[in-house]
């Protein structure tokens, strides 16, 4: 399994601190959110790519959420190059899995794979905030939320990225229906979930400069993945 290990780099915090002006990360930011339902899962991401510290918009349309070969959807935000590399590695592993086992990898298995892939770069992490959405073995929607070194948990509704802190409490309010008495989860339909997603992103776009331009919704059902695109503010 040696070939699965990441490229070894002679990097330690000490070498990074001494002499070199080169900082190997930037933050191209953006927001990703996911909500799971009874037999569906909705993933959403904006499409703006920013330059990081320079207050520049690189481009208004560079998708950072991708459908994978097993029908689940992986969204990334943070350092775009790391996110893209992560997706390439995951896609490769999915292909190997398919050839080895003659079936597609399930979403929960992929969630674990994603976790160990992130952890394999524990000391030179992928600076990517990722969210994985799909259907579990029973066909129920699932969303997995991660930190950049591989901690993960399945959740009902999750937002991450530059606008994550703005959206997450709203999702708690609308999807989890959290109250002082506990969690009273309201049943929600696909249309309601899509409406909540669109509201979340229009709100986040108002206050977060790195979120905007277009919203892409990936709707995952047993029939496959539908993609919808909506406008967001472009300022």
């Amino acid at each position, binding site marked *: 399994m040696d070939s699965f290990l990441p490229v070894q*780099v002679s990097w330690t915090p000490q070498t990074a601190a001494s002499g070199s*002006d*080169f900082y*190997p990360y930037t933050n191209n930011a953006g927001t990703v959110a996911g909500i799971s339902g009874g037999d569906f899962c909705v993933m959403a991401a904006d499409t703006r790519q920013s330059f990081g510290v320079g207050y*520049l918009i*690189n481009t208004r*349309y*560079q998708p950072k959420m991708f459908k994978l070969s097993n029908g689940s959807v992986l969204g990334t935000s943070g350092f775009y*190059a790391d996110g893209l590399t992560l997706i390439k590695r995951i896609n490769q592993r999915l292909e190997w899995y398919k050839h080895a086992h003659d079936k597609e990898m399930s979403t929960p298995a992929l969630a674990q794979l994603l976790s160990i892939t992130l952890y394999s770069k524990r000391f030179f992490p992928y600076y990517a905030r990722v969210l994985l959405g799909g259907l579990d073995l029973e066909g129920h929607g699932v969303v997995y939320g991660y930190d950049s070194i591989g901690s993960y948990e399945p959740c009902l509704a999750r937002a991450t990225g530059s606008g994550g802190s703005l959206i997450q409490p709203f999702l708690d309010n609308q999807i989890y229906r959290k109250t002082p008495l506990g969690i009273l989860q309201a049943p929600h339909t696909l249309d309601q979930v899509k409406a909540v997603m669109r509201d979340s992103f229009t709100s986040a776009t108002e206050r977060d400069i790195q979120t905007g331009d277009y919203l892409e919704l990936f709707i995952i059902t047993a029939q496959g993945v539908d993609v919808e695109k909506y406008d967001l503010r472009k300022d």
Partner: protein
Amino acid sequence: MDRFSGNFDRFSDLFNPYDSNPTNANHAIGDFTKCTRKPLVMGSTVLGLEYQDGVMIAADTLGSWGQLARYRNESRIYPVGNFTVLGAAGDMSDFQHTKHMLDSLMIKEYYTNDDHVLSTPHIYEYLSRVLYHRRSKLDPLWNTYVVGGYNNGERFLGYVDLLGTTYQSSIVATGLGAYFAQPILRNAVEGREGILTEAEAIEILNTCMKILFYRECKTLNRIQRAKVTADGVEISEPYALPTEWSFGEGIRGFGTQTQ
């Protein structure tokens, strides 16, 4: 007093975090292991846009050594194969390395003799993976590249920098060009890619390069332009942009005209 003028302009850090000044006291001259972390001869802005016949990119011909305009005939545009062109900003020695690397790649592919030709997206992907790999080794190729191409009726214009960040767009600008030229390009090009004529595209790029020459220190008004169309790559000879400075006569209040 700090005699290193590079330390005067604090803005250079903000506008171009990858810039550096070889006359800086901290520079790693003599420590060759660190040379790739400290660029020496630097190229500045590259601009690119899509128009109706294909893509067009422009760059000036200056290789700066710190604040010194050291090499005034440095070509920063290079053809790769028949339908791809590469524009480079950043360290010129790393650019030359990249040129050798891509030439070797194209020759290797040619001798395979399997009727497959690397098209622009392939070259772009290869280049971006090389740059990402080098950044992951913390030994980056200190460049920002603009890759333009035209394959089977498809325009391609992409950006890749020393961190491996990539994006494709109908307009691309590097360095200070991202601040000065990008808004002008967006106004002039976005949504009109299919109807923009060659003459208009040339006019837009000339205007942008002239504005950059007026406002950016590390540029020349001597530029090169390249276009990629169905007919292949065509890179112009360097030519000078006419500039107008007479308005300076009328400015009062600073410099030598204080009255």
